[in-house]
């Protein structure tokens, strides 16, 4: 459901509260105006051209002052509510505290980095028991990080660090999207925030940090490296981000590919290997001109990434 009907954090709750207030005020004002318009239209409708001119009234100082002062009082009240909510919702922008999470927008994917070095694309885990200070960054153009049920949206501006509180009061999966136009595939930068109880979150973070044991690469993995896939896509959560393409670690646990544009099925993975531009037009992945046999082996490899 929409952000204003199902807030799941104190911040989102506060926004929903302000919105409800504005909606109520707007409804009353609109009804007053509409009632006056409808009344005039019905009551003062003239039958034809021939009727005598009505009484000519040029204004009323007291009425005019009334409809200046009353709206002034309303917006003054609204301003106070606004500022109070801003204080509650907004995270400190100049804090010396290191962030709990760094989220980076790329054309057209998201990536989250935890203090222990874990890097994950698309799916961001948070605990439910406390609010995280998340730093929002951009690697290229302006994006906007938006999880309607959980937090205010925040522009990711290149060259700037911006901070938000990321918080959830109940465990669950919350969907998010990019909310600033950022080029061809702005539509498909949809990501998820997974909120878990503190214990589950810590376990997840530790497990991720342990990473996959270093085995001798098999034929498929060698192909992944030789064909240049690994130049952009890391497969280990602890590897630093290449900044060019999302990490493929844990690929098979994801429901969607490419920020929501395709379901994660073997057919769609194959489509991506065959013609990346058909899979997500405009994305930054070049066509790697693989043979059918290479694609088959790479698919096996991708399907092993859990």
């Amino acid at each position, binding site marked *: *459901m*929409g*952000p204003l009907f199902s807030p799941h954090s104190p911040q989102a709750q506060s*926004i929903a509260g302000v*919105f409800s207030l*504005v909606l109520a005020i*707007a409804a009353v004002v*609109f009804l007053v*105006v*509409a009632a*006056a*318009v409808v009344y*005039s239209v019905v009551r*003062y409708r*003239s039958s034809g051209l021939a009727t005598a001119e*009505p*009484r*000519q*009234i*040029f*204004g*009323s100082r007291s*009425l*005019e002052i009334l*409809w200046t002062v009353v*709206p*002034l009082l309303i*917006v003054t009240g*609204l*301003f106070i509510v*606004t*500022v109070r*909510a*801003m*204080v509650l919702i*907004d995270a400190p*922008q100049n804090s010396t505290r290191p962030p709990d999470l760094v989220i980076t927008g790329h*054309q057209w994917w998201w990536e989250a980095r935890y203090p222990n070095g874990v890097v994950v694309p698309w799916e961001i885990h948070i605990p439910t028991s406390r609010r995280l200070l998340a730093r929002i960054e951009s690697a*290229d*153009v302006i994006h906007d990080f938006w999880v*309607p049920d959980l937090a*205010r*949206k*925040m*522009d990711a501006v*290149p*060259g*700037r660090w*911006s901070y938000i509180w990321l918080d959830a009061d109940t465990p669950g999966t919350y969907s998010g*999207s*990019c*909310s*600033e*136009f950022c*080029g061809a*595939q*702005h*539509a498909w930068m949809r990501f998820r925030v997974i909120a878990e109880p503190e214990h589950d979150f810590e376990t997840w973070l530790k497990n991720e940090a342990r990473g996959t044991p270093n085995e001798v690469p098999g034929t498929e993995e060698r192909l992944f490296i030789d064909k240049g896939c690994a130049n952009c896509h890391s497969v280990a959560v602890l590897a630093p981000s290449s900044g060019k393409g999302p990490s493929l670690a844990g690929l098979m646990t994801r429901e969607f590919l490419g920020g929501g544009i395709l379901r994660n099925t073997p057919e769609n993975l194959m489509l991506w290997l065959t013609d990346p531009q058909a899979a997500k*037009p*405009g994305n930054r992945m070049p066509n790697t001109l693989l043979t059918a046999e290479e694609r088959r082996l790479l698919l096996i490899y991708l399907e092993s990434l859990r």
Partner: protein
Amino acid sequence: MSAWLCAIDHKRIGILYMLSALLFFLAGGMEAMVMRAQLAAPNLKLITPEIYNQMFTMHGTTMIFLVAMPILTGFGVYMVPLMIGANEMALPRLGSLSFWLQFFGGVLLYFSFATGAAPDAGWFSYAPLTEEAFSPGTGLDYWALALLMITGGSVGSAINLIVTIATARAPGMTMRLVPLFVWTTLVASVMIVFALPALAASLVMLLSDRLLHAHFLDSSQGGAPLLWQHYFWIFGHPEVYIVVLPAFGMISEIIPVFSRKPIFGYPFVATSTVAIAFLSYGVWAHHMFAVALGRNFLAVFAAASMLIAVPTGMKIFSWVATMWGGAIRFTTAMLFAVAFLLEFTVGGLSGVAFAAVPVDWQMTDTYFVVAHIHYVLFGGTVFAVLAAVHYWFPKLSGRLLDEKLGRWSFWLIVLGFNNTFFVQHFLGLLGMPRRVYTYPDLPWFGTLNLFSTVGAAVLVFGILLFCANIAMSLFFGTQAGDDPWNAWTLEWAAPSPPLLQNFAEIPEVRSRRPLWDRKHPEAPDWMGAQ
């Protein structure tokens, strides 16, 4: 033909503005329909994302710069001299130059389609997406150059209107007596002179970056992407009022005439226009609330953005009070004016919602904004212009528009408009971002979008009917006579259509309603407490 190409008569130039605005309105409307078709259902692939992005960029740029501004300038150039009892604009050749700069700016913008690379970074064109690294094609160069030409044309016509209103008023017409359309046109023109240079400056920065490899807006080289946003919105928010204030002026002319009462509280309506103009230069950062600019900074802009609702609200109440106690005649012009009142109120109120910063933090860049701006610019400006076309067409052409066709087009346009845009409030609340070429099949997304698309089709039908009415009435309409509405301002004292010399004799003015005084010698306005 050459009489039109070389026209310097304000009436011809005014009509050229209107025709060019209509032409681009149809182009911008077609772009909108392509978008609505693509969005009719989730995951459609009628057009590529690149084409979609070109469509919304061209739609926004067209509707603001090639439709809203020129149609209002066109009415200003045509009506202002007539309404103030002048025979000509103060600077006729500047008038001609301004129009052609504007028009060929539009032609240059559309020529980008022929090169295969129309601009695709939005009408707001945020850096650094517009930098060469991310937009290597020539589309944005066309966009920036075209807008520079249009800026020149707009400033030229604004100066012309200011000088005309300042110097060419009929004897006796003080600034306290000018019709409100003239007032609002004057204020909007002053705003153009101060706001458009900020746009020109930002365009020059963009072009320097793109063509001369400067680094104004490139953060990787020490530039500042946010510089663009500040400059663009210092222009961009006053721009909203530039295309709304003259529409307020039109409504302030039409409602009194068809309610048979003078405007309620003229001094308040005129003063609130100036208040809006003044405040509009202090609200630009409300377009940037989602940027981390600091709480105190944002609070100042929130306060100004809420304050600006007060003078706007005053006008709404004045219009309603003008109708109250009147003898209302429901011509098509009046129907559009009344619909304007309700729709603009919706757009104004959703605007107040965005001034409340936390609401903006949730709703900005969603379909809620798309709904809001269309209630302001279509429900507001376009409805006012449609009212004005029905009101002034007899003066321009000498013939009345067909009332029956007018009513049909009115109801289709009202129905289509509200169907298209009201549901977009809900789409925004459900979390649909704007400027997306498609969307996932989430609950309600498909249904509401389809509803919106069907509404848009109805709207197109209504607009086409309106165009047909104009074309037919131009040749077959009933003869209007000089003053078909029994109106009160000076343009109705001139013949319909006016001759090259508007007034055989410059009328003397003693009140805000010179023709009322002439028709009611027993109780002229200047004797009462107007």
